[in-house]
């Protein structure tokens, strides 16, 4: 589904990713871990099409096609979803309005008529249940005044509404209390099927107790330096990154 080859990315003339490679197939869950500032969010943003990054080398192939030239909205319509590490507050735009606009723009792109209002509202209600989202939240402005945990729940709620094929969840677990973590993880799991794939970026093994990854990758120095199963996450939790850094730097 996603194949990144030899990717080299810079921002402000500073190279962040270099020789980055990953293969993600439908039905898989990949976890990406790594020290702060190594480029995990950069990777997520580049896949989602954020401006400001320069791709110096390599390619991102999604569903068989390079998406480097596609706009963020085009990628989203093709099924890419980014769960933001720092969800953006948008005063004056209600979540309901936001999702309605998104759903209908995607439908229009697919040649479908706008979803009838009644159908949309009952769909929204179903999706709220998945993340046990407070009903009043949806009528509020997007993320405005939301607690850290509410913002993350809102990301997964949007994912539930948009039903992406490739979800990249950037530290969706950070800032969640124990119950919220369970709810969010449960939500992510319930959206999983054999046709979609998930990349979770996380610092904590905890999340991976709930969302069992097929692969755990360590990002360091701009590339994946180690790949393993879920036991790698346990090892990292225990020993930190120093031993990997040593392995690499030698």
């Amino acid at each position: 589904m996603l194949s990144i080859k030899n990717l080299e990315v810079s921002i402000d003339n500073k190279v962040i990713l270099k020789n980055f490679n990953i293969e993600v197939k439908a039905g898989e869950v990949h976890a990406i871990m790594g020290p702060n500032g190594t480029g995990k969010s950069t990777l997520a943003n580049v896949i989602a099409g954020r401006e400001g990054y320069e791709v110096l080398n390599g390619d991102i192939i999604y569903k068989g096609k390079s998406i480097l030239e596609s706009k963020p909205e085009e990628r989203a319509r093709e099924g890419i979803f980014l769960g933001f590490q720092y969800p953006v507050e948008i005063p004056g735009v209600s979540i309901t309005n936001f999702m309605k606009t998104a759903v209908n723009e995607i439908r229009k792109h697919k040649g479908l008529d706008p979803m009838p209002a009644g159908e949309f509202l009952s769909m929204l209600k179903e999706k709220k249940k998945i993340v046990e989202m407070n009903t009043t939240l949806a009528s509020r402005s997007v993320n405005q005044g939301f607690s850290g945990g509410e913002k993350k729940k809102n990301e997964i709620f949007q994912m539930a509404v948009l039903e992406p094929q490739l979800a990249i969840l950037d530290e969706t677990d950070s800032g969640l209390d124990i119950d919220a973590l369970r709810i969010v993880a449960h939500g992510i799991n319930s959206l999983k099927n054999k046709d979609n794939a998930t990349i979770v970026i996380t610092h904590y093994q905890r999340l991976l107790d709930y969302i069992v990854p097929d692969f755990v990758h360590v990002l360091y120095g701009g590339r994946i330096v180690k790949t393993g199963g879920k036991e790698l996450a346990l090892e990292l939790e225990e020993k930190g990154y120093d031993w990997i850094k040593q392995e690499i730097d030698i």
Partner: protein
Amino acid sequence: MLKDKIYEDFNLNRNVLLDNFSEPIRQLKHKAFESFVKLGFPHIKLENWRHTNLKNIIENDYKHCFSPSDKDVDIEQLFQCELPEMDTYTVIQYNGWFMSRNNDISLMDNGVIIGSLNKAFKEYPEIVEKHFGKYTAVEKRSLEALNTAFAQDGIFIFVPDNVKLEKPIQIINILDADTNLITQPRNLFIIGKNSELTLVHCDHSILHRQSLINSLSEIFIDENGFVDHYKMQNKDAESTLITTINVHVESNARISTNALILNGGVIRNNVNVKLNGKNAQADLKGLYLVDRKQHVDNQVFIHHASSHCYSKQLYKGIIDDDARAVFNGRILVDKDAQKTDAYQTNKNILLTDNASVHSQPQLEIYADDVKCSHGSTVGQLDPNAMFYLRSRGICEHSSRMLLMYAFASEVVDTITIEALKYRLDTMVSKRLKGELSICDQCVLHCSEKAPDFLKMDFKPIV
């Protein structure tokens, strides 16, 4: 030159401008004219006129209408411009003159008087003389002096004590002439103790001739009274619209104003509020959506003359193309006006490099126990928000639209009358989409080209 024309007009029309009025009014108008002669038109050397230059405008000639139009105007047609979902009393000001279907002035069962100011001078002299010109600075502000000297007609509303007018009064100000026109509409609104009035003031023009409106409204709100004032401006590019609202607020009384500027050539709005009694409140809002070569200047002056008063200003604007916006918010707190709360916010979005804004707070505080804040921002649409929206599949245009609409809605959402809010909300979104109109069924729409920046099929969903 307009100035010469004004001298000539005044001298040749003394019979209708002075002789027709009672002695105190005549004296005031005479004094006002002399003041105008002394002060002249405002120029850019004056602090409050630095960014709005009338020079080119006053080089033109404009004609005054010294009597009401005898043209057969189809009022029924014009009345289509009512806010359809709203039950309003509608009054029309045609080339500055009050115009009505039947009565020029009417006294309602509850004691409310609505009608022509010209008639009110004659029929209710004691009420009019008590207030006319009392809240206006004819010695200092030349355009207020000019208006006072030339004032002949306008809307007069008197609400006695303890009357809450349920229906808003909608005033439609129309210019319609085949020559360049100057009008000096003069309105007087008097609201008694514990009384309430909602005013919706719309400025339109029918013909695209050069025009200059210099309107002045005086509002007196007695103790515990409330006036909710809405102004909608949708004018053509050839027009210059200068409006002044002078409000005098007694203790526990409140004024709320909301200026929605959707289009215009040159627009200058002055709102001057004097909070004259304890606990008086002013809540002043404005939204300006300007493009092409439009120029919008909002000047707010709040005078805290008494203790425990509250004032808030919220002005927001989106400025496109080569358009220019000016905001000047002056807060004056007298020495005795302790426990004053005064807040001011001005936020602007510039959509192009050529768009500009001049935003300036002016605080003069002579009391020591005062809470006062001001903030002004000028920026582009938030790129993080843009990416967030686009990452959900919403195209760039729609995302811009959504953000601008949201930006504007902070002002629109403060409207307390649901039907009016819905109406204005629709108007704002249409305006942003480039579907210019003031009211759906209105015959007075401007025929100018829609701005390109938002021609799209996005429909905000409420």
